[in-house]
């Protein structure tokens, strides 16, 4: 990686350290992370009751990544991620009612019941989806970045994927294109240590993931503590600025951990309870809660009130979604073609 790039990155990191979130931001993030977690606990429950089908990949433990990074995103920025997408959608501001409805396969769902847990979309919020083929959305991110550059916009793409996805050819080709065309993309590798049951050490020849993109694609890499929401925000904000400045792409190795199994049907024999417990000690929500308490911004009463409000919000959205009608059977022919023909004409 060239000297200029290195200097730019040092500047970026320094800049990030000067960014100070406001109390209201911190409180909002606490609320968002709690909302994501409550949402997902409710999902887990419904899934176990077999009311939700398909695969369901919970984000529990990783909430700070989506919340902290997307706090740095403008409404005009583009967001794209993989199938573990609940947290990103909620942090992007999608209401949880259409998300629940999607999980229930209802036509009121955020993808009209066609996508399910792995395929949340929200066009209005520039949320370009959850995508379920590992790595296959990373090239799409280059297209989003391309469109931004083509139109000389100031926007940035936030592209999320897992440590496991980095071993896909699609990752390689996309990163080279992003480096070559200097596309405004923040690549966020959520390194939660596992791709399904395989530890990153057993999947990646090099485990220091932040190094994988510098010499290979001229895209500087930095790591960041994904269990620390303000840290995520600071680095993402600086990274987005770096990209808006026309410097091309940047790569963040986000160190995080998922508490639950890969999906709902994972016996998790590949890790010990101790390993899990160790990470849970750094729980992103607990950590921010403590900070907010220390700063006098939260107390037990406020926390209780907030949790109750969120609980109510979750239950109401869930209930409403559950009551919604299933799609009409004829819906299977709809929304396949934008210029439909034959049986696809509605």
């Amino acid at each position: 990686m060239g000297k200029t790039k290195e200097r730019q990155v040092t500047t970026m990191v320094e800049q990030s350290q000067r960014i100070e979130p406001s109390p209201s931001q911190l409180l909002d993030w606490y609320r968002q992370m709690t909302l994501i977690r409550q949402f997902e606990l409710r999902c887990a429950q419904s899934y176990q009751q077999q009311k939700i089908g398909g695969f369901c990949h919970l984000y529990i433990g990783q909430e700070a990544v989506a919340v902290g990074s997307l706090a740095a995103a403008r409404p005009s920025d583009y967001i794209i991620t993989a199938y573990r997408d609940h947290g990103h959608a909620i942090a992007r501001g999608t209401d949880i009612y259409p998300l629940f409805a999607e999980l229930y396969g209802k036509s009121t769902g955020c993808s009209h019941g066609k996508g399910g847990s792995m395929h949340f979309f929200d066009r209005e919020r520039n949320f370009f989806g959850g995508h379920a083929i590992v790595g296959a959305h990373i090239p799409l991110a280059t297209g989003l970045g391309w469109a931004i550059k083509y139109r000389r916009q100031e926007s940035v793409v936030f592209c999320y994927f897992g440590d496991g996805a980095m071993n896909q050819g699609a990752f390689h080709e996309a990163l080279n294109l992003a480096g070559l065309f200097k596309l405004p993309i923040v690549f966020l590798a959520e390194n939660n240590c596992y791709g399904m049951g395989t530890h990153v050490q057993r999947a990646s020849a090099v485990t220091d993931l932040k190094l994988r993109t510098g010499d290979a694609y001229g895209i500087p890499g930095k790591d960041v503590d994904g269990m620390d929401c303000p840290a995520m925000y600071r680095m993402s904000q600086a990274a987005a600025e770096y990209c808006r400045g026309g410097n091309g792409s940047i790569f963040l190795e986000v160190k995080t951990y998922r508490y639950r199994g890969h999906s709902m049907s994972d016996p998790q024999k590949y890790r010990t309870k101790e390993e899990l417990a160790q990470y849970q000690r750094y729980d992103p929500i607990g950590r921010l809660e403590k900070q907010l308490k220390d700063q006098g911004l939260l107390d037990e009463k406020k926390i209780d009130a907030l949790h109750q409000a969120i609980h109510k919000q979750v239950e109401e959205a869930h209930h409403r979604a559950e009551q919604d009608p299933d799609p009409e059977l004829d819906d299977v022919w709809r929304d396949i073609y934008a210029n439909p023909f034959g049986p696809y004409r509605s």
Partner: protein
Amino acid sequence: MYGAIFMRIPLDRTGRDSLQDDYVLRRMFMPMMQFREALNQAMCEEMQRDADVFLIGEEVAEYDGAYKVSQGMLAKFGPTRVVDTPISECGFAGLGIGAAMAGLRPIVEFMTFSFSLVGFDQIVNNAPKIRHMSGGQFKIPIVFRGISGPGQQLAATHSWTIDALLTHVPGLKVVVPSTPHDAKGLLKTAIRDDDPVFFLENEAMYGNRGEVPEQEYVLPLGRADIKRAGTDCTVVAWGHGCLTALAAAERLNQLHGLAVEVVDLRSLRPLDEESIIQSVRKTGYCVTVEEGYPTCGVGAEIAARVQEKCLDDLDNAVLRVASLDVPMPYSKPLLNHVVPGVERVAEAIKQAVYFRV
């Protein structure tokens, strides 16, 4: 070199209302033009018309296109709109799809569709399904174009006729023109279409010349064209296979006075089933011609539909002519033995209509 015709473009049965204005009877001047020039013109006109259209692919810009289809376009539109890529089919196909999601209208050139297989997931999963999986929130106005069909002794991996693999997949559209005229009109429509359209060309046809109207025109997707009218046998073909079929029809006419009708599908998805059925109802016989592998091919689909829709009108089984069911060999005589030529098509037609000398 100039002719003048009335274009036979019907007004009904098209899915694209916004385009119907263009389908009018018009007197047109028809200069002769190469297939590749017709494609070039279509792209240039659409790029002039719509700033969101851009062309991307390997060697399309500075090299002027591996097969010179994009000749002069870099000079005309500059490097933001005519874009060379690394040899990363998965990457730049995905880039195109992402750009389409964001509202641009990319034309992605595959040097040949044989190379698109390294990016197959992008073209059969992302392109045709993101609209659906998002419940219709996104449209994917993208054209993938390039060569489909066995080239000049390029051996097994380089000689894909990809028609059937793509036609199999709902969410895509598949267009295969056989003349410069159709190529231009269909490519313009494909670029304006809001769905992923696969536009399949053929190396052996790039140099072919044909009449192309001077005035602007577009052709609807999903409308077959009767390239030769006849009453004795229906031959269903498309792309390069259509030229083989026409030659066979001509030969049978000259040798035996047979009146073979050649239905040029022009697009495989949407498929103009009605035109096929109508023709078969008339002739009672049907032969399909394709250059791809026979098994689970497009010919199989047509045969299955024809027997389903008009079994009682058939005076013989639908016969399929396709490449032999083998990988394409390098050796020229072997290759010519594998790919169906005029002789083989003519024989099949004779067999289909129980023709005996």
